[in-house]
C-alpha cells in the first residue's frame, strides 16, 4: 500500500494512540452495538449506517481505496457493530475527499462522506488537529488554491 504521507501515521498515533493497529476479535454485546457512540454518529451525520446491507458498491467505486486501511463498506460494517476504536482510529476517514461517488450510487442512499465527517469530528474532539496550518510546508501554502486550504482546514482542523 502506498504511503500517504509520513505525517498521517504520526497524526493518527496522536489521535488514537491506544488503538494503534489492533485487529483483535470483535466483541459484541447489545450495549456495544447500541452504544452512545453509535447514536452520536447517527445524530451527528444524519445517516443511519444500520440501513447498509453491505453490497460493497461504495468500495467498488471509491477512488481512494488504494490508500485506505479499511474500505468504506468495512467502516460502515464496523459502525454497525459499534466498534468505536476501529472506526475512529482508521486512516479511511481522513482519506475521504467527499467526492460523493459512493453516495450517488448507493442503493440505500447512504452518504459515507457524512459518516466520515462525523467520525473525524469525534476523533478530533478535545484532542489534536489532524492537519494544522503549521503542518503544511510554506511552498505548498503559497501554491495551492484558496479553496483547498479552506476545505482542508474545515475537514481536518478544529
Amino acid at each position, binding site marked *: 500500500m502506498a504511503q500517504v504521507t509520513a505525517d*498521517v501515521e504520526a497524526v493518527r498515533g496522536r489521535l488514537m494512540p491506544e488503538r494503534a493497529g489492533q485487529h483483535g476479535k470483535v466483541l459484541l454485546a447489545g450495549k456495544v452495538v447500541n452504544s452512545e457512540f453509535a447514536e452520536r454518529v447517527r445524530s451527528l451525520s444524519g445517516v443511519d449506517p444500520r440501513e447498509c446491507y453491505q453490497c460493497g458498491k461504495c468500495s467498488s467505486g471509491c477512488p481512494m481505496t488504494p490508500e485506505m486501511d479499511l474500505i468504506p463498506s468495512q467502516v460502515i460494517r464496523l459502525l454497525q457493530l459499534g466498534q468505536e476504536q476501529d472506526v475512529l482510529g482508521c486512516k479511511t476517514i481522513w482519506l475521504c475527499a467527499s467526492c460523493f461517488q459512493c453516495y450517488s450510487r448507493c442503493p440505500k442512499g447512504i452518504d459515507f462522506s457524512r459518516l466520515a*465527517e462525523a467520525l473525524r469530528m469525534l476523533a478530533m474532539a478535545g484532542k489534536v488537529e489532524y492537519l494544522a496550518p503549521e503542518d503544511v510546508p510554506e511552498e505548498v501554502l503559497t501554491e495551492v488554491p484558496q*479553496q483547498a486550504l479552506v476545505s482542508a482546514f474545515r475537514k481536518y482542523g478544529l
Partner: protein
Amino acid sequence: MKLAYYPGCTVRDKAVHLDETTKASARELGIDLQELENWTCCGATYPLTEEKIANLVPQIRILRNVREGGNSQVTTTCAFCYSTLKRANRAIAVDDLRRQRVNAFLRDDDPVRPYKEQTQAPADYEGEVAVLHLLEVFRDGFGWDRLAKATKKPLNGLKVAPYYGCKLLRPPKEVAFDDPENPTIFEQFLAALGCEVIDFPFKSECCGSYLALSAPESASRLSHLILTSAVKSGAEVLALSCPLCYYNMDLRQRDISKSYPGFQHVPVMFFTQLLALALGLDEKVLGLDLHYVDVRPLLRQKNLLQ
C-alpha cells in the same frame, strides 16, 4: 440577459484566468454579469454534519445579498462555490430548522451594503435565488445554437476532453446539474465552440480534491489516472471548471512526472479560456502564461493562436 456573478476566492488569486475569461466572454456575448458587491468566501466545502448549521451562514448571506441586489439568479464558475451555494440554497428551502436558525443568525448581521442603506434587516431568505453554473446559463438560458453562432474562431480540430470532477455532478439529488453517470452539458458546450469532443471514462472521477494538502501522493495518483486516460482516448487538452481540479491537473504534473517516469505533460484549460479563444478575444485576456503546462504550442500548432 442579466444575472449576478459570484467569483469566489480562488479565481481572484490562483485562477485569475478563469475569472478574466469569464468576464470578457460574457461581455462579448452580451451577458450582463453583475459582480456581487462585498462578496465573502462561500465556505468552500459544504458542511456534512447535522450540527454545523452555522457553516451555512456564509452561503446564505451571499444568496441573500444577491436577492437584495435585485437579482433572482447568480452564476459562478468554480465548482466548489457552485456546490456549496447550491446545496446550502436547497437546504434552506427544504429544511425548516436550518432556515430558521440561519435566518435568526443573519437577522443580527448588519449587512455592509453601501448601495442600500437599511435600518431593518432584510426579510428571511428562503432559497428564492437560483444558483447556476455558467455552463447551465449557456444550456438553459443562452442556448447552444446562439453560442455556436457567436463563435468567431471555432476551435475546429482541437481534441478536448471535458473533465467534470465531483462537485458539479454529485450528490445528484442536491446539485441536479446533469446525469451523474453520463453527463453531456460540457460536451455540448465544447461542441458549440467547434471542438472535437473526446469522451473518456474518468471524466467524473475525483481528482483528489483537498487531499492535495494532506495526501498529495493520492492526488498525484488520481490526476495521473485521469490525465493518461484522457490522452489514451485521444485528448490533446483537458477542459475543466474547478480551480482545485485545475491545480491537481496542471501544477501537479510536476509531481506526477517524478512519481510516474515517462509521463508526458498534457495541457489543461478552463472552459472559459476555450470560450474566450473561440470568441476571438485578445490573447492577453486568456492568461495563457499562467499555466504550468504550456498550452500555447498546441494552440499555435492548431492555428488557434498567433
